[in-house]
């Protein structure tokens, strides 16, 4: 379980995230909604240790993450699949995935199990395993990014706008895969522009605006909430 308490963070001494409280329960799919610039990416980057928080704390399964180096956070079981994917574009797909298992490198058997598992989840990656990751289509690159994050054997997967820039049909495929990952028992913290599709697969949701949590509740409550319907669902 991930507990974010009073988290503030930002760039160059200007906070864009103001005292945010968010909880992602073990094994559940928690969605974070919000317009561009509402602080979703900043929150995720702070949780996974790329940014230092200016206040507040992040706790994961009882361990305080703030201050741990990025590899310590990955070892603790938290994987972050970032906005913009950040793949190793010139390396073959399979090498990207194996590097995803970097923190589990001492357990070769587990890494190969995980590799077989992600190929099962995304069979197209198996077909393209020798192609440089940068030559794949946008949707396939997103699959590589998700698969690479799963290779670290996480108990919580943070997904930052996996559908960004993808065609609607591909978005649906990616979100189906996310739902499948969650059914397999991995907790997911998902930021998504496509609010309706995201809330359908989620258990809980938060709405962020200007760096603050303005609304939270179960996914069904949020789907029925008039404010959410007006602002994010366009009905």
């Amino acid at each position, binding site marked *: 379980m991930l507990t974010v308490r009073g988290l503030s963070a930002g760039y160059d001494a200007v906070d864009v995230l103001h005292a945010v409280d968010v909880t992602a329960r073990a094994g559940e799919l928690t969605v974070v909604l919000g317009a561009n610039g509402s602080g979703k990416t900043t929150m995720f980057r702070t949780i996974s*240790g*790329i940014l230092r928080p200016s206040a507040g704390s992040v706790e994961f399964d009882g361990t305080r993450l703030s201050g741990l180096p990025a590899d310590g956070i*990955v070892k603790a079981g938290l994987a972050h699949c*970032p906005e913009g994917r*950040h793949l*190793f574009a010139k390396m073959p797909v399979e090498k990207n995935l194996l590097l*995803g298992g970097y923190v589990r490198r001492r357990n070769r058997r587990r890494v190969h199990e995980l590799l077989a598992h992600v190929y099962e989840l995304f069979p197209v990656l198996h077909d393209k395993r020798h192609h440089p990751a940068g030559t794949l289509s946008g949707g396939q690159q997103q699959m590589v990014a998700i698969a690479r994050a799963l*290779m*670290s054997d996480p108990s919580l997967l943070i997904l930052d706008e996996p559908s960004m820039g993808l065609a609607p049909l591909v978005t649906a495929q990616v979100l189906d895969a996310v739902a499948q990952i969650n059914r397999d028992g991995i907790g997911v913290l998902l930021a998504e522009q496509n609010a309706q599709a995201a809330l359908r697969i989620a258990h809980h949701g938060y709405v962020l605006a200007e760096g603050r949590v303005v609304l939270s509740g179960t996914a069904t409550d949020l789907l029925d909430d008039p404010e959410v319907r007006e602002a994010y669902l366009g009905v």
Partner: protein
Amino acid sequence: MTLFIQQLFDGLALGGVYCLAAIGLTLIFGVLRIPNLAHGTLYMLGAYVTYFFLVTVGVPYVAAIGLAAVVLAVIGVLLERVVFHPLRNAPHTHHMIAAVGAMFFFQAVAQAIWGADFRRMDSPISGSVTILGAQISWQRIVIVVTAVIVLGLLTWFIKRSIHGQTIEAIEQDRTGSSLVGISPSRVSMLTFGLAAALATVAAGLVAPINLLAPTMGDALSLKVFAIIILGGLGSLPGAIVGGFTLALAEVMTSTYVSAAAGEGIAFAVIVLVLAIRPTGLFARAVQR
């Protein structure tokens, strides 16, 4: 024809040395995005430490180079920790100034220990062999063979082993690397250690042909920069092809034009490459 074959072998031997020295520089550039101006002095220290083990301690030649490579790897890691790591968030000019400082420091240390005079390290490998009518010294053959073996091992390390792959991963995407748990700080220590060890192997191989002096790294430094600009900054194949190309051009020009022209060819190459193809032969994205 005999002269040409002779020069060809000289060029290949020199090329092997240039490659080994240039690869370290290109790796450091790829990982830290800084030109390590102190690289030539690591090469110089490598030569002196090899000399120390071979002449002063009296261990066999190959063991002396190996021991010196280990010592220099440690010095490389220390250089990264003490000088470059504290500057990791500073602007790039700071790195360059620090590198020049390190360069003067290492030269002063070498001068304090071994003096400013030239020193000679006799080749423990003597004799020569006649190939196609040309006399090729065993030392040059050893240089070429060792360079090929070391380059092979290095390529295997970087492409196949998980620790070597982290070097390429950081080069290609720093954020992506942190997110899979690769520590940038560990990779930059590894890169500096490796770069210093490779420069030492280069220096140890060529030392019996040339003389040792605290300033011997200066000329090499300029040439390896020419090589990595020619090959493309951060590119491994670029450093290898660039190293052999520059060495052959240098040797052939010295023989068929004049020695002075041979020394100048590296700079002609830089000017030409920057004018015609500024990204180098093996262009690799160097945006940012």
